[in-house]
C-alpha cells in the first residue's frame, strides 16, 4: 500500500494517466480514499494497461465522470454523517449512539480504519494547538508585508463587497420578507379568475364578507392607490401618490406614529371628518418639518382634510407610500363592482397559510353558489404579502443560481490573484518553511498555517467590504429603480441594510477566498519539501513562478489598457447626443404631463377623453392670458422625449441607402401626434408647403407634416409636398395603413433617438381629446422654474382634480443618457479593479524574483556591481511583462476600434496615452518597494541566509 509516489509496487514507473488518476482521487473524502484509493488506482492501472488508444479515451472519460459523480455522492454522505455525529454529541452515551458507533466501526474499513482514525485525531489536535498561534502569525504578517496586505486586502474586500451586496439584493428580490415582527405572517388575498388567470381587483363585495367570516386571517384590511393633488396653504399644489387604506394596516405594522395618531376605524365611517396621515418625507419636504403640523388643513384632490398624524421615517406600507387616508368602502357594493382594491391581513395565531387557503376555498365556494353569474370562476388565493406586490418567484432558482455562479467566479478570479501574492510571500519565506518541516511540521500543518494567514487577511478585507456594502446596495437599488421600467419606487422592504444571512454568506465567501489564496499557494510551495530538506539547502529546486502566471499578468495589463475604449465609445455617444441641435431652446420651455381621473359622470372612455380635451382647452386659454407665457401646445410626445419608431413606405422612389440598423422593410421614422399650433409654439418655421389648420383634424383628412431629416433621408432631398406615405404592417396583421399626404416641412425638433443626429419624423394633427395622457409644453419668458407653481395653480383653478406633472424641458433627457452614465461608472470600477489586480501580479512576481535572487544580488554587491546594473536586472522581468501587456493591449484597442468603426480623435488618443503612462508608472512604483529591499541586502546577510 505505501509505495513511494511515482512508482507502482514493483518499482516500475507509473504511466502519467495512472498518476493523474491518483491525483484526481483527492476529490474523494479522506475515509473513502484511505479505504479504497489504492485498490481503485490498481484497478484503473490494470484497465489502462489492457486497452488500445480508443479504449483508453473511453476509459479516461468514463473514469473521470464516474469519479466526479462518486465524489459528489460520497461527500453528501460524509457531510450527512458529520451532521448526525454533531447532533449526537448532545446525548453522548445513549445506548443507540453506542450501537451506531459500534456498527460504524464494524462497517468501516477494518484494516485501515484505526490508522486513519489516529491520523484524524492527530491532525485535529495539531489544528487546535496551532490555531491561535497561526492567527497571531497571520496578524504579524499583515504588518510585515504592508504591500501584500493592502493590495490583496483591497482586492478581496472588493470581491466580498460585490458578493455580499448582490447576495443581499437577490435575497430581498427573490425571497422578500417584511422587516416587521412576524412579517412572514402578513398575507395578501387575491381574487383570481380561474378562466382568464386575471386578478379581479373589484373585490369589495368579497372583502366585506371575508372580513366578517374569516377566522384564520386577522386584521383584514384593504387599500386602493391613486394620485391626487396635495394643496397646502403657502406651499402650492403638487400631485402625490395617495393610498386609501384600512386602519388595521397600522395595527398590522405596529409602528407608533411620530406625531399625532394613525388612522382609526372610526375614520372610515361614512360621515366622519376627512383626515390624512402623512409620512416623514412629506412632512419634511412639503411642511418643512413643522412640529405643529397636526391639525393643519390641506386640500387633497377636491376634499379638504385635516392632518392627524405623522408616521416615522421608513414607514411606507403598503408599498412605497407616504400619504394615507381612510378607505371608505360601501358595504352595499355588488359583486365585481366598486374600486380596485388589494386585500391584506395577518394569519391568526396558530393558523397556517394552508389553513387560511382551506377556509378561503370554502368561502369562495359559498360565494360561487350564491352568485353564480359573477363568482362561478373566481377563486380566492392567499399568499405571503411581499410576494403579492412583485413576484419574481418564477425566476427565483435561476436568478439565485446564476448570480451565485457569477459571484463565486468573481471571487475565484480575484482570490487567485491574491493567491499569487501569497505564493510570492510564502516563497520568500521558503527557508522558514523548510526549517519548520525539518522540525516535524507536516505538510498539512504548514498549509493550514498559510490558510490561517489568508483567513486573517480575508477577515480584515471582509470587514472593509461589508462596511462598503451599504453604499454599493444604494447604488444597485438606484440601478434597479432605473432598470425596471414599471417600478417607480421600490417597495419598502427592499432596503440597503444587511441581513444576518448575508453576513454568513460573506463569511463563507471569506473562507472560500482564504482557501484559494492560502491553501493553493501553500500546496504549491510545499511540494517536494522532503526532497529539498534532504538537499538541505533552501532554494535548490524550490518553487517556481509558472508561465501561466506570467500569461495571466500580461492578459490583465492588456485588458486594463483596452478597458477605457468602450468607455470612450460610450462617452462619444453621450457627446453626440448632447451635440444634437434640438432646433429649439429647452431653457425656455416647461413640460407637463396632464392626468385626470375617471369620474362617475364619464359614461364612456370617449366621454372621459372629451372631458380631458375640454379641460386642456380651458387650461390653454387661461395660460394664454398669462403675460409670462409665450405659447402653449400639446402632443403625445414633446421634443427631447423618446419617440415611437414606425416603419413607412413612400408612394414612389425613396432614397437609398436605408438605415442599416433597421431590420423592418421600409424606412424608420419617429411618429408623433401634435396639436395644430405645435410648430408655432416651438417657433419652428414651416420651410415649405403649409402648417396645420383646424380642418386637418377632421375625420378622413389624412395630412402630415415631415421634418428636414425626413426629406433628406427618405426622399433624397426631392420635393416632398404632395407626396404620400403610409405605415407598413407592423405585425398586427392589419396590413398597410391608408396613405397620408405630406403638406409641409419643418426643421428637426429634438426627435433624435440615441446618438444618431438623423431623425426623420412624421407629425399628425390631432385635437386634444384624441390622445391621453397629454404632454403639455409651455413657452415661458424668463425663469421657467419660477413659473411652475403658477402653472399648477392655474391647473387647480381649472379643475381641482387635474394633475400636472411639470418639469423644465431641460431636465427631459433621453433614457440613453442615464444608461450611459451607469455604463461609464461601471467601466471605471472595472478599470480600477483590473489595474489593482495587475499591480498585485507585478508586485508578486517582483517580490518573488527578488526573494529567489537574494543570494545572487548579495554576491553581485559584494563583487562591486553598481546599483544601476542590479536595478536593471531586477526590473527586466516585470518590465517585459508590462511591455508585453501594453503591446497586447494596443492590439486589443485596434481590434475594438475596428469593431466600433470609428477612429479615436486625437484628444482621446492623448488621454489613452496619459492613462497608459500613468498605469506603467503605477506598475513601476509597485516594483520600487521590493527593489529598495534588494539594494539594502548586505552581502554577508545574503550569504548567511543561505549558509
Amino acid at each position, binding site marked *: 500500500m505505501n*509505495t513511494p509516489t511515482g512508482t*507502482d509496487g514493483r518499482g516500475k514507473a507509473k504511466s502519467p494517466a495512472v498518476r493523474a488518476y491518483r491525483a484526481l482521487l483527492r476529490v474523494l473524502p479522506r475515509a473513502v480514499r484511505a*479505504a479504497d484509493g489504492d*485498490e481503485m488506482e490498481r484497478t484503473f492501472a490494470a484497465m489502462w494497461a*489492457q486497452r488500445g488508444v480508443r479504449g483508453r479515451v473511453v476509459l479516461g472519460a468514463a*473514469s473521470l*465522470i464516474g*469519479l466526479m459523480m462518486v465524489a459528489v455522492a460520497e461527500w453528501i454522505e460524509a457531510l450527512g454523517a458529520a451532521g448526525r455525529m454533531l447532533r449526537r454529541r448532545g446525548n453522548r452515551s445513549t445506548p443507540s449512539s453506542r450501537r451506531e458507533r459500534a456498527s460504524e466501526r464494524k*462497517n468501516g474499513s477494518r484494516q485501515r480504519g484505526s490508522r486513519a482514525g489516529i491520523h484524524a485525531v492527530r491532525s485535529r489536535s495539531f489544528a487546535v494547538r496551532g490555531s491561535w498561534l497561526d492567527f497571531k502569525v497571520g496578524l504579524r504578517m499583515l504588518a510585515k508585508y504592508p504591500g501584500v496586505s493592502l493590495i490583496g486586502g483591497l482586492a478581496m474586500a472588493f470581491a466580498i463587497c460585490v458578493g455580499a451586496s448582490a447576495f443581499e439584493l437577490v435575497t430581498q428580490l427573490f425571497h422578500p420578507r417584511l422587516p416587521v415582527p412576524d412579517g412572514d405572517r402578513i398575507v395578501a388575498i387575491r381574487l383570481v379568475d380561474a378562466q382568464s388567470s386575471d386578478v379581479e381587483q373589484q373585490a369589495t363585495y368579497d372583502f366585506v364578507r371575508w372580513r366578517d367570516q374569516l377566522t384564520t386571517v386577522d386584521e383584514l384590511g384593504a387599500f386602493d392607490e391613486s394620485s391626487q393633488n396635495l394643496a397646502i396653504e403657502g406651499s402650492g399644489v403638487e400631485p402625490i401618490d395617495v393610498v386609501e387604506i384600512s386602519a388595521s394596516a397600522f395595527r398590522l405594522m405596529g409602528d407608533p406614529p411620530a406625531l399625532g395618531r394613525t388612522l382609526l376605524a372610526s375614520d372610515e365611517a361614512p360621515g366622519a371628518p376627512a383626515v390624512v396621515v402623512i409620512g416623514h418625507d412629506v412632512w419634511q419636504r412639503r411642511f418643512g418639518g413643522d412640529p405643529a403640523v397636526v391639525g393643519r388643513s390641506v386640500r387633497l384632490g377636491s376634499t379638504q382634510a385635516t392632518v392627524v398624524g405623522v408616521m416615522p421615517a421608513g414607514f411606507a406600507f403598503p408599498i412605497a407610500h407616504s400619504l394615507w387616508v381612510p378607505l371608505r368602502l360601501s358595504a352595499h357594493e355588488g359583486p365585481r363592482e366598486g374600486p380596485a382594491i388589494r386585500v391584506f391581513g395577518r394569519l391568526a395565531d396558530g393558523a397556517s397559510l394552508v389553513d387560511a387557503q382551506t377556509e378561503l376555498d370554502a368561502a369562495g365556494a359559498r360565494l360561487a353558489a350564491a352568485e353564480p353569474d359573477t363568482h362561478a370562476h373566481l377563486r380566492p388565493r392567499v399568499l405571503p404579502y411581499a410576494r403579492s406586490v412583485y413576484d419574481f418567484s418564477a425566476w427565483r432558482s435561476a436568478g439565485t443560481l446564476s448570480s451565485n455562479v457569477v459571484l463565486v467566479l468573481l471571487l475565484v478570479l480575484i482570490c487567485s490573484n491574491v493567491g499569487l501574492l501569497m505564493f510570492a510571500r510564502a516563497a520568500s519565506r521558503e527557508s522558514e518553511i523548510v526549517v519548520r518541516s525539518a522540525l516535524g511540521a507536516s505538510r498539512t500543518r504548514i498549509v493550514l498555517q498559510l490558510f490561517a494567514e489568508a483567513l486573517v487577511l480575508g477577515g480584515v478585507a471582509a470587514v472593509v467590504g461589508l462596511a462598503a456594502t451599504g453604499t454599493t446596495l444604494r447604488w444597485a437599488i438606484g440601478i434597479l429603480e432605473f432598470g425596471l421600467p414599471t417600478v417607480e419606487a421600490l417597495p419598502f422592504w427592499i432596503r440597503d441594510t444587511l441581513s444576518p444571512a448575508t453576513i454568513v454568506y460573506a463569511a463563507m465567501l471569506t473562507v472560500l477566498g482564504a482557501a484559494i489564496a492560502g491553501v493553493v499557494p501553500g500546496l504549491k510551495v510545499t511540494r517536494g519539501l522532503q526532497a529539498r530538506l534532504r538537499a538541505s539547502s533552501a532554494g535548490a529546486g524550490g518553487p517556481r513562478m509558472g508561465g501561466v502566471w506570467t500569461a495571466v499578468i500580461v492578459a490583465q495589463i492588456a485588458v486594463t489598457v483596452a478597458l477605457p475604449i468602450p468607455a470612450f465609445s460610450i462617452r462619444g455617444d453621450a457627446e453626440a447626443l448632447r451635440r444634437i441641435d434640438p432646433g429649439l431652446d429647452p431653457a425656455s420651455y416647461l413640460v407637463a404631463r396632464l392626468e385626470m381621473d375617471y369620474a362617475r359622470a364619464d359614461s364612456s372612455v370617449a366621454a372621459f377623453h372629451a372631458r380631458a380635451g375640454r379641460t386642456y382647452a380651458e387650461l390653454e386659454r387661461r395660460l394664454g392670458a398669462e403675460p409670462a407665457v409665450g405659447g402653449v401646445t400639446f402632443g403625445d410626445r414633446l421634443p427631447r422625449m423618446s419617440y415611437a419608431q414606425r416603419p413607412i413606405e413612400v408612394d414612389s422612389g425613396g432614397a437609398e441607402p436605408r438605415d442599416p440598423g433597421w431590420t423592418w422593410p421600409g424606412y424608420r421614422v419617429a411618429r408623433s401626434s401634435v396639436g395644430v399650433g405645435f410648430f408655432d409654439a416651438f417657433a419652428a418655421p414651416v420651410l415649405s408647403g403649409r402648417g396645420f389648420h383646424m380642418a386637418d383634424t377632421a375625420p378622413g383628412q389624412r395630412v402630415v407634416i415631415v421634418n428636414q431629416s425626413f426629406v433628406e433621408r427618405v426622399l433624397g432631398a426631392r420635393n416632398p409636398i404632395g407626396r404620400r406615405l403610409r405605415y407598413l404592417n407592423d405585425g398586427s396583421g392589419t396590413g398597410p395603413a391608408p396613405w397620408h399626404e405630406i403638406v409641409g416641412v419643418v426643421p428637426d425638433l429634438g426627435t433624435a433617438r440615441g446618438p444618431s443626429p438623423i431623425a426623420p419624423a412624421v407629425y399628425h394633427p390631432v385635437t386634444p381629446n384624441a390622445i391621453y395622457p397629454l404632454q403639455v409644453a409651455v413657452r415661458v419668458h424668463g425663469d421657467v422654474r419660477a413659473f411652475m407653481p403658477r402653472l399648477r395653480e392655474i391647473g387647480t383653478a381649472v379643475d381641482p382634480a387635474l394633475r400636472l406633472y411639470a418639469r423644465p424641458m431641460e431636465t427631459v433627457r433621453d433614457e440613453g443618457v442615464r444608461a450611459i452614465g451607469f455604463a461609464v461608472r461601471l467601466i471605471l470600477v472595472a478599470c480600477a479593479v483590473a489595474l489593482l489586480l495587475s499591480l498585485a501580479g507585478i508586485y508578486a512576481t517582483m517580490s518573488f524574483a527578488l526573494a529567489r535572487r537574494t543570494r545572487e544580488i548579495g554576491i553581485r554587491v559584494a563583487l562591486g556591481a553598481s546599483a544601476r546594473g542590479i536595478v536593471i536586472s531586477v526590473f527586466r522581468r516585470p518590465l517585459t511583462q508590462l511591455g508585453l501587456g501594453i503591446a497586447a493591449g494596443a492590439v486589443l484597442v485596434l481590434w475594438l476600434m475596428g469593431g466600433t468603426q470609428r477612429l479615436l480623435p486625437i484628444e482621446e488618443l492623448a488621454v489613452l496615452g496619459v492613462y497608459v503612462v500613468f498605469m506603467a508608472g503605477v506598475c513601476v512604483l509597485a516594483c520600487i518597494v521590493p527593489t529598495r529591499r534588494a539594494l539594502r541586502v548586505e552581502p554577508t546577510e545574503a550569504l548567511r541566509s543561505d549558509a
Partner: protein
Amino acid sequence: MDETQPTALAPRDLLVLSVLSMGPLHGYGIVRAVEERSKSGLPLDPANLHRVLRRMRRDGWIEETEEADGEGRRRIHALTAAGLAVLRAEVERLDSLLREVRPALKANPRPAR
C-alpha cells in the same frame, strides 16, 4: 419475494453479484468478467465499481480478504451466503417477470423483413 430484497437490483449490482458467484475475484477481475458479459461496451469505471463494492460489503453481501501476489497485496472479493440469497431472489424475480410478459410478444410476433 423474500425479505432480504425488497426492491429490484440495479443492472450493475446484478452483474457484479453474478460474476462473484463464479468465484472470488479482485477489482480488475470483476471489471473484466463484467465486460465480458455485458454488451454495452462502456467500461465499468473504478470509482463506481468500488462504491458498489463498498456498499455490498457494508450490507454483508460480499466479504474481502487480502492476498499477496506478484504485484504486492491485493484485495479479493467473495460472495457471502446473504449475497448469494440476494442474487438468487433477484434472478427468480426476473424469471417470473419474464414468464408474465413473454406471451405479449407471442401475440405480436416480429414482422418479417
